[in-house]
């Protein structure tokens, strides 16, 4: 792997609420290099979106963030807001899940893309508008010069997501965080949008952090995968590690719940019993233990001892946080 452009070490995010302290992210590490894609996978509430917001410094004031977020080796946590502002949208940009609500309904899409450019470049409005049209054209909006004057509600879902992507890429960011960029779209449009993201990534050498619960998309575009569960890393490795050598029972559960074309259609999709724990409710042992099918094979350790990410012998950088030493399927 090339020198990473974004590194996150031991990231903790704790929200102080009226009900007490809620640890949403409890120590995760990841890194992503230029041109590479890291997928962060997990159920709702696993802390994946909170992690990305923490990287951007976009969390509300009741969130306490500790750890390291390094952009080209420069620590972002604790930077004054003014400095962070210069990085947001410029070095690290974001693509959101729901393009309709992510775009401001009161301004034309061209204006919104141009604004992103003007916030980081000292140029005239006219220049910025030209740049916006150029960008809208690049993300595949037909007749961009005319459509730039349109408002978000006049665009289809896929076109709106293209606008959001144009807005994110207008400053040629080093890192692109895509938070479930295709969840709100039709399946056919999903494929187009993912293709677009891959194309621009290849063209600009952008490092991409893809947050998703769609393993199909992940298999398609990711280089590395981080599986998150209850605010912690369950498994980390290359996309091949996850799909061919998944080591954590939770990852196996996710894979089993994914529809596939290469298995006989009579085989039922499996589900993971139970539901994810509320953040902070499991303080000792493995957070996945109550839902785990393999606890019997390990015994008490699952309840008393929290598993740490440990390298899988002979599998490079592949790591899993599970007391079960062998691959579950071999047991």
């Amino acid at each position: 792997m090339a020198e990473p452009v974004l590194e996150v070490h031991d990231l903790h995010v704790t929200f102080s609420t009226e009900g007490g302290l809620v640890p949403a992210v409890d120590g995760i590490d990841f890194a992503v290099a230029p041109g590479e894609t890291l997928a962060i996978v997990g159920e709702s509430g696993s802390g994946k979106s909170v992690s990305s917001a923490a990287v951007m410094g976009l969390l509300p004031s009741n969130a306490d963030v500790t750890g390291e977020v390094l952009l080209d080796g420069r620590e972002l946590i604790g930077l004054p807001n003014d400095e962070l502002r210069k990085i947001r949208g410029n070095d690290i940009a974001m693509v959101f899940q729901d393009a309709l609500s992510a775009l401001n309904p009161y301004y034309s899409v061209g204006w919104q893309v141009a604004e992103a450019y003007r916030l980081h470049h000292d140029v005239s409005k006219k220049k910025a508008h030209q740049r916006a049209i150029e960008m809208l054209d690049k993300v595949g909006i037909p007749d961009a010069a005319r459509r730039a004057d349109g408002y978000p509600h006049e665009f289809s879902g896929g076109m709106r997501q293209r606008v959001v992507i144009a807005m994110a890429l207008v400053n040629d960011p080093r890192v692109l965080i895509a938070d479930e960029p295709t969840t709100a779209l039709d399946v056919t449009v999903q494929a187009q949008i993912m293709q677009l993201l891959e194309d621009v990534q290849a063209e600009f050498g952008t490092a991409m952090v893809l947050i998703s619960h769609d393993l199909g998309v992940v298999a398609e575009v990711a280089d590395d995968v981080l599986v998150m569960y209850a605010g912690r890393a369950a498994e980390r490795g290359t996309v091949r590690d996850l799909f061919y050598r998944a080591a954590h029972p939770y990852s196996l559960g996710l894979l089993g719940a994914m529809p596939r074309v290469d298995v006989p259609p009579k085989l039922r999709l499996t589900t993971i019993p139970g539901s994810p724990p509320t953040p902070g409710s499991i303080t000792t042992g493995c957070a996945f233990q109550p839902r785990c099918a393999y606890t019997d094979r390990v015994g008490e350790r699952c309840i008393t001892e929290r598993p740490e990410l440990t390298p899988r012998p002979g599998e490079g950088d592949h790591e899993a946080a599970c007391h079960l030493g062998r691959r579950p399927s071999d047991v």
Partner: protein
Amino acid sequence: MPDLVWFIVRRLFAALIVMLALSLAVYLVFYAIPADPAHLACGKPCTPDRLEQARHFMQLDQSTLQQYLNFLKGIVAGRTFGDGAAAVHCNAPCFGYSFPLARPVTTLIMDRLPITASIALGAAVLWLLLGVSLGVIAALNRGRILDRLAVGVALLGVSTPSFLLGLLAILVFGFWLNMVPVNGYVPLTESPVDWAWHLITPWIVLAILQAASYIRLTRSQMLEELNLDYITTARAKGAGELRVVVTHGLRGVLVPVITLFGLDLGGLLGGAILTEKVFSMQGLGDLLISAVGQLDVAVVVGVTLFSAFLIILANLVVDVVHGVLDPRVSHG
């Protein structure tokens, strides 16, 4: 932009229909009341003969429908009461004729309008600025001391009667501190400085009372707005907090605020009755109150219709401003 023009034409047409229906309702209501304007005009002693003469002269002997049609015709073409040397002429647009005041209602309204408009417009600018800025400050400092203070001021404003605050202001700033004139009105054309100086107290009093609802509306609207996804987008783009709040947040806040503002201003232009009374200003409200006292039905109908017209106009302006502020409205 042709979208917007078409939108305005549609709204104008709707406004015209509403005005027509409204004029009929107002006319019927006020002419159905038992007071007989002819009775007042015929003087004492009032013989049946003279009463009949007065009724004929004032065209009250015709059917109610005919009277209403005369009224409508008067608006377009003007009308004449009586004939020969004694004839009274009321030029178009004629909204009726006040026999007790011996003047067309239109003239009466136009004479008084500048005073009411001066009070209302000045106060409106003040309360809009005050209300929106305090509302935004409250929202940005939610739960903190500034927020509590703004909400407290708002509560006080809503619950204070205008005559009380007006009289207190006159007492403190007019008499005790002797800073501002106690009453009277100076036309803007005569002396702009004196004009503003005489109006400053009613402006501030009205603004404080009206700003209250604007503080509350702006605050709640802004709090909602700041939770929207596109606000997060603006931050993620690298926009500074001021830009996030003013450029991205305030736009959505202004839509409901402008609606309220248009209606409030339209209502106030029809006469700030209590404020005019307290500050002894002869505006539309004062005209209406004395007309009611003298059973001068023509003036009551005229002023009522004029106020209604202002509200409809305000609604129209609000709709157009909506169309400009929110592209989803005019394109929809």
